[in-house]
């Protein structure tokens, strides 16, 4: 899966939780889920669960703790996919 495909899938996943649509339109690797997209912190766990379902991977707490921005989330997904 290319980085673009990953980014596009991740964008679809976060969309229902985003409260700042401007941030979503400008989504890129440096986008922060809380600061830029204003995702409620209780919804970050939904993002993680949706990522698990979409990519059929398991995200442990150690990996989850990094998933607060696009770049780190993509790194987590890539490493979990590679370990499959």
């Amino acid at each position: 899966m290319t980085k673009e495909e990953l980014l596009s899938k991740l964008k679809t996943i976060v969309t229902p939780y985003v409260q700042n649509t401007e941030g979503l339109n400008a989504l890129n690797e440096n986008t922060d889920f809380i600061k830029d997209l204003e995702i409620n912190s209780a919804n970050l766990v939904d993002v993680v669960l949706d990522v698990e379902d979409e990519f059929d991977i398991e995200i442990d707490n150690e990996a989850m703790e990094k998933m607060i921005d696009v770049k780190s989330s993509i790194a987590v997904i890539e490493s979990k996919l590679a370990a499959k």
Partner: protein
Amino acid sequence: MIGNDIVDLKLAQKQSNWQRKGWLQKIFTLREQEQIQLAKQPELEVWKLWSRKEAAYKVHQRRFNLQPKYNPKSLECVDHLVQIDDSVYNCETQLTDDWVYSIATSSSKNPISKVFDHNRVRDELKLWFSDFLSIPESSCSIVKNLNRIPLLRTENGSEFSNFSITHHGDFSAFSIDL
């Protein structure tokens, strides 16, 4: 040091499905999950524990100037205490029909705390500090450091970090530890 967190219960019900498979398990320790299952009002218990964890996380992050991270399970609530790593924080939780609000502190002093039924908590905080310091409100600004911890800065360069702000839905609050 102080941290606070408010949950708008109506909005939380809309935003989060706490019964979703895996949801509780990702956020709460086994002991907390058991506490939720045994509670008379499990949903309310979820938000009580959540707000305590968030409030304690904020104190801990401020105390050690830590980078933001997302690991609610690394904090465990035991009654009014929240443990993380080797630290324990004292929590006070207030409850109405509309919101749950927790304040966590690293010391047992009496913090100042106000809840608002609007979202302009930053203005309220600036107003409070301008009264307290007897300076114009326009000379106070709220900035964030590199770890996104907020600081109140005055025109003459003084900085205060002994406060916490929170907002969710229709409600907001600040707490100050003087």
